[in-house]
């Protein structure tokens, strides 16, 4: 059966972001049915049975996450939609919010009905100004059409949606970092337990779901769990948005079944490596993922297959690098990002991200030594798994994998007085303006 686009099927059509358009295509039918006719437990069971896995990066089964929320509680329950898409190389939620915002609201209503939520927050990345405006329009449309607010669809179910704009911190895309930020505090991840499902935003049970995860819900309700599970691998099924950037002829967001082959994705859909060059490396799941050497890229893009390949699907932000790329410079770019974005809460991440950037910077600018490569590995080992959230891991994974898989680039920089780029131009001082 040929794959049919679901999430982005109308992207590019005139007024595809409007309520009128969305309703004409049958939109909100599933949400209305869920609100009026469905039993919440049955909805949770359906989503569990569909094997839908979170699309934000960790790939946690969505139905299982919902079931963690206490059924009987005096506290309010909240849904917080993670729209703080900030993983480098990822731009899938942005497409959904700009082109198909009602699909997200559709999913929000279904989730809220299933878990018994009457207030949902959308925490949207501050830089997404256009997406924010589109989403705001959509929410206003939905309110005036009775799809949000008191007694939605004429039922007795209330649901409010509040948009909250982030202020530019990567860490606020981490689920508990986002919750502290939403509470008005400095965005720092919280210790777990308690998990958000039990004690999340404002101390209340909270479901945190990614935009794309929620956007899958109407389709699951439409075709049922069994049919949904047939799209892609059974353990990790569904339509999936893949973001391809870097050295390809046709970068962009592509909706394909989960489990599509990475080389097929690059060569067929993204137009292949640009300028007739050959492939050197691919980061398959956002900059936090272990890099794949060109030899390792014949892999299915799903959670299990990429785990086996020693990397991760993550946010499915695929960054393609051609054979002209200096991996020292590529790593420096990534390390600069994590050094800049570490919240500074946990010691290994606060200090380790800066150390890694400074080490790679020194190698790139010609001051490297052979023993630095082992030191990078040691620093990474000392960061992984030792912090409250996964930012330290996210910084260490690309560092250790790039050094391990492309040692020749590093040896070249060490022996030839720096990376090719640095030899051509003097570089700006290392992060924070503090290295004087």
């Amino acid at each position: 059966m040929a794959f049919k686009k679901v999430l982005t099927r109308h992207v590019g059509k005139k007024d595809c972001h409007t309520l009128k358009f969305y309703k004409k295509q049958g939109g909100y039918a599933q949400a209305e049915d869920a609100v009026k006719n469905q039993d919440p437990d049955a909805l949770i069971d359906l989503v569990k049975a569909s094997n839908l896995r979170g699309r934000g990066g960790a790939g946690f089964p969505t139905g299982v996450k919902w079931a963690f929320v206490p059924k009987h509680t005096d506290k309010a329950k909240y849904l917080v939609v993670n729209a703080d898409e900030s993983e480098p190389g990822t731009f899938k939620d942005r497409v959904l919010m700009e082109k198909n915002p009602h699909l997200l609201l559709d999913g929000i209503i279904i989730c809220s009905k299933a878990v018994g939520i009457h207030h949902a927050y959308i925490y949207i990345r501050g830089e997404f100004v256009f997406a924010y405006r589109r989403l705001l329009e959509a929410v206003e449309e939905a309110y005036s059409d009775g799809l949000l607010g008191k007694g939605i669809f004429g039922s007795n179910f209330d649901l409010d949606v509040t948009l909250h704009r982030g202020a530019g911190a990567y860490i606020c895309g981490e689920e508990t970092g986002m919750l502290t930020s939403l509470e008005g505090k400095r965005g720092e991840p919280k210790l777990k337990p308690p998990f958000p499902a039990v004690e999340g935003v404002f101390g209340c049970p909270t479901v945190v779901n990614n935009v794309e995860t929620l956007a899958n819900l109407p389709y699951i309700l439409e075709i049922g769990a069994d049919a949904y599970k047939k799209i892609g691998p059974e353990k990790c099924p569904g339509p999936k948005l893949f973001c391809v950037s870097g050295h390809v002829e046709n970068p962009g967001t592509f909706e394909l079944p989960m489990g599509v082959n990475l080389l097929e994705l690059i060569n067929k859909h993204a137009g292949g490596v640009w300028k007739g060059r050959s492939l050197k490396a691919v980061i398959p799941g956002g900059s936090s993922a272990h890099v794949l050497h060109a030899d390792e890229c014949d892999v299915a893009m799903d959670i299990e297959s990429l785990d086996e390949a020693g990397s991760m699907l993550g946010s499915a932000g695929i960054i393609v690098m051609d054979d002209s790329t200096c991996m020292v410079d590529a790593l420096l770019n990534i390390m600069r990002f994590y050094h800049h974005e570490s919240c500074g809460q946990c010691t290994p991440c606060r200090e380790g991200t800066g150390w890694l950037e400074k080490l790679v910077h020194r190698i790139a600018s010609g001051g490297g030594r052979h023993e630095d490569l082992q030191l990078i590995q040691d620093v990474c080992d000392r960061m992984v798994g030792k912090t409250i959230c996964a930012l330290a891991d996210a910084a260490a994974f690309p560092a250790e994998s790039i050094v391990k898989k492309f040692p020749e680039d590093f040896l070249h920089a060490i022996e030839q007085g720096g990376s090719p780029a640095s030899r051509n131009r003097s570089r700006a001082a290392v992060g924070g303006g503090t290295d004087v």
Partner: protein
Amino acid sequence: MSEHATTVTWTLNGKQVESPPGLTIMEAAKLHDLEIPNFCYHPGLSIAGNCRICFVESNRSPKPVISCSERIAEGLEIQTHSEMALEARNSVMEFQLINHPLDCPVCDKAGECVLQDHSYTHGPDRSRFEENKTIRHTKKLGSTISIWGNRCIVCTRCVRFCDEITGTGELCVVERGDRSVVDVFPGLPIENSLAGNVIDICPVGALIGEDFKFEARIWDMKKTSSVCAGCSRGCNIEVQSLDGFAKRIVARENPEVNEWWICDRGRYDYRYLLAADRVTDASAGGEPIDSDTADSSLNDLVSENGGIVGILVDPMMTCEELHLVNRLSSTLSDCQVAAWSTADGEAESFPNGFTISSDLHPNRAGVGAIIGKDAFSTVAKGLRRSLDAGDIDLLIVFAGFPHPDLEKKWIESIGKAKVRIVFSLQSGSWCEGADLLLPSTAPLEKEGSYLNQDGRLQRVRTLIAAGQQPFPSELVRLQALLTHLGERPRSVSSSGVFRELASSVEAFSDQSHSTLGESGCVLSSGKSAVGSMGGDA
């Protein structure tokens, strides 16, 4: 936790142990005399779990776990010194030190620095970090506190203190990553009444008291456990002094009184010890006299007086001194003992329950228990009436107030005594025209005990080494006087005087200085002793 589970059986370093349920690994290990290293953990604050130095190995996790937040559970097996645990803690120490300036030789925290301690046990002996260190700000956060940002390990103890204990929230962490540092909001300095505690709880030398900066090395100072005399609450303090001079006062833990905190008045108010208007020498009729002459003059003035005697005590006096006054009063045929005090200060209370009393005297309850409940009220009124009528032949005044804000009416009445002996800490109008003026010891120079507002009797200790006193204390002079009057054969220590007190005043029976220990005891009949204390006459 179910009602049946009174203990949890778990394994600590291969040994099966039992602990009360609900504790964290760190708390439970401490009950078994095992201190797990920590920076951000503080028993009085919420758990932050950010420093990561308390890593231990658990059988329930493939990764090391932080013992400050993980709780013990049945069957849990914890290794604190396994290879994994040590490697995890060593790695945290390496990270802590890469951007640390290592300026211990000029750092005021050196010697009591937790970073130094853990660096000694867990740190590498050399650094693998050869890059430039991150520079962070050094600035004043308030009138008494500055941040030396380069030393800050962002444990957030101070931030949590201002959020949770004072509720004032002045401090925050600014910037991100290794640029993170503690700061205040622009224009909103840290000026709350408990602010100085953030200096105590800073595990490193990041928060420095301006008052103590570059004043002394920690290891050179003598440390004296005592009790604050700033108000009737009796917070436990440690007085740190060098060559007999107080250099700083820090909080001493007492869960029953002040937990881990003291207020800034108690912390910084020791300057009066060296104040210019302090009475340091005895004088008679305005003329300085030497100490021996003063002693004999005191003895003569009292023994030669056959008339009506009044004694005015102050609630800065220790229970021991008050007891001696009682003894003196009973030897004199016609004597009344009243008490006076300074005006009330401002009471303050904080969200966590910490309170500062408006009563600025540490031993008002002691006066009530030893001299009598009416000492401040009806007796005082009576004494003043007698003074105003010119009926008092000899008045002995104790005015050991560091901040004498005394009623004018009292001072006028005092002047009407025919003969006046004044023990005073500071010179003032009540000293003028005294027939004999004697220097008074300050609270930090007294040996003895204070009874606080809640009936807890606590030891106060002098910061002055034995034999170094510049003048005989009231304890010595009163005993010498009693000996002169034939009342006692010899002088004894404050502990000895306390034994007499315990045998003569019911409320103090069964107590001795040794039973008071470091944190004091609540007197069994304390309630009645504290009772309703009248105001000043």
